[in-house]
């Protein structure tokens, strides 16, 4: 997994609530056997329907690493193809009012940082981004700080374990496997 420390990036704005993983990657793109190359599938149907006006297709989206979404981002299907596609497209962080549980876990495992902010911070960032498409935000994971284009800051929550894994690019499976003795002991005592 790629480590995440900090970034300074423009923002793609898609502030809709309840964006489900069927929109992020429509099911017909799930017939792959690799994690790579799903960036083309990202929001494929919305991109087609809205053409050049779709936020991902606009010139200022090029190179942007932050997606600004609404509440409950990533609800629905557990498909990890959603974060694979977001990362493949170039995103490293999603700013939203809240995240669906499975998506949040899947994102962190792929070095994609879910940044949950309160309504006021969300509204301020959205207003700044709406006024100027080229504004940037800074994200610093160590201090759990999001710096808005006007210089104001907001802290965001992340559990200590996920933070450690992201900062150091640690893969959870290696950690899990280090508990082999405990796992074997559990198997001996469980029915």
């Amino acid at each position, binding site marked *: 997994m790629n480590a995440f420390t900090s970034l300074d990036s423009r923002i793609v704005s898609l502030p809709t609530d309840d964006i489900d993983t069927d929109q992020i990657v429509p099911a017909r793109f799930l017939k792959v056997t690799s994690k790579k190359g799903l960036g083309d599938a990202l929001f494929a149907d919305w991109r087609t329907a809205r053409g050049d006006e779709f936020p991902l297709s606009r010139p200022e989206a090029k190179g942007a690493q932050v997606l600004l979404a609404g509440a409950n981002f990533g609800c*629905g299907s*557990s498909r*990890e193809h959603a974060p694979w596609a977001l990362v493949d497209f170039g995103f490293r962080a999603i700013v939203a009012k809240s995240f669906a549980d*499975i998506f949040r876990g899947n994102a962190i495992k792929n070095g994609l940082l879910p940044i949950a902010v309160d309504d006021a911070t969300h509204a301020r960032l959205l207003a700044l981004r709406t006024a100027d498409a080229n504004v940037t935000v800074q994200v610093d994971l160590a201090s759990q700080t999001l710096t808005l284009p006007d210089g104001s800051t907001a802290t965001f929550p992340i559990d200590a374990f996920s933070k450690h894994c992201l900062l150091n690019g640690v893969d959870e499976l290696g950690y899990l496997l280090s508990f*082999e003795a405990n*796992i074997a002991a559990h198997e001996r005592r469980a029915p």
Partner: protein
Amino acid sequence: MASGKTTLFEKVWNAHVVTEEGAAPAILYIDLHLIHEVTSPQAFTGLRERGLKVRRPERTVATMDHSTPTLPKHLATVDPQAVAQLDKLEANCAEFGVTLYSLASEKQGIVHVIGPELGITQPGMTIVCGDSHTSTHGAFGALAFGIGTSEVEHVLASQCLLQRKPKTLEVRVEGELSPGVTAKDIILGLIARIGVGGATGHVIEYTGSAIRALDMEARMTVCNMSIEAGARAGMIAPDEKTLAFLEGRELAPHGAAWDAAVARWKTFTTDEGATFDQTVAIDAATLEPMITYGTHPGMGMPISGRIPAPGSLSDPAQRAALEKALKYMNLEADAAILGQKVDVVFVGSCTNSRMSDLRLAAGVLKGKTIAKGVRMLVVPGSKQIKKQAEAEGLDRIFVDAGAEWREAGCSMCIAMNGDMLKPGQYAVSTSNRNFEGRQGPGGRTFLASPLTAAASALRGHVADARTV
């Protein structure tokens, strides 16, 4: 909890915590890992790259369901990518020693249908699958939840997952359902009330007399859609119905092992006086048949109601979402949904493809024919269900009514196998998701019960089975 009283969820959770170290999440042992073709190939690749084995192949069970054809095999549309994915699952299972119920097996079917059917879904278990509708298995008092592919790899390699303990939400449904109101209406009613993020971070336990009165298949329908309220899982405490369902099933315990298992399973209930983080109460008698009108399962209403107007919502984000949904659905605010034209009716999916669902739909259709111009697909959840339905003559009822009787699989719920809506078409579907494009790009879905689906097929428009 301070009282020492624990909930069903806490009992199952506590019995599976391997260890909890410092600030790290708990390591949770997984009793049963179900896998299918879509979310597993990258996990097996990961194992191979690290030189790892499947730690407990006997606790791992695979089937093919998402991209499988529902027409007899030789008629299947050739989709090289889907075929490659199915072949990959077959090769991975052979290489790693995992039991696979492939298309050639008489026991193949939708993963959440065959687990209970085979008797491998059991009370008190932890069950995971790279599929969000794993919550279905919670109907047996198991803690069952969907995971991503990285976690599929974790479970294959370690039989464990790193998990933070979720909160608990009791959904208490008391009273008696009115005739024509089903388990699907309970869960659609709940999601309409608490929203698609209403249970995020929580495990739901469904309690109350209306839940106890449901048979096991209906309980699976309720638990199945827990994820559509954002819940981590949905659970129902095991009782005599649970035991009666499991007894004698192929992979359930037998003989003395059965007696020992039953004694243990009976301990998986919520103690009197145990507390939940939240509780929602529903009066079953007030529920009507439910139907969705929008583009997520929370946009649902009683079938006799009128489509809400965006102007009636105070929250700007919700208002915008409803406007967007009605535009996609091409529906008018304040209009009745009864009478809305329907092009396709789909009876199937891990939500409603079991014998009781098929019997409900057949009961409405018996001796009648579906409306001209309507296409109706009936897709059983497993090969065993297909066989049983044919033994009961349900297939004849469907075919005589003008419906298509298909092979088992996920089919038009996820539209990965060629069974799909055309752009702009309206479907009444017994499945679980009405997201934009879920049943085919541009397709428009009304989620409802098998009764409503069958009644709508007869009329050619959204219809109330109680008046058909």
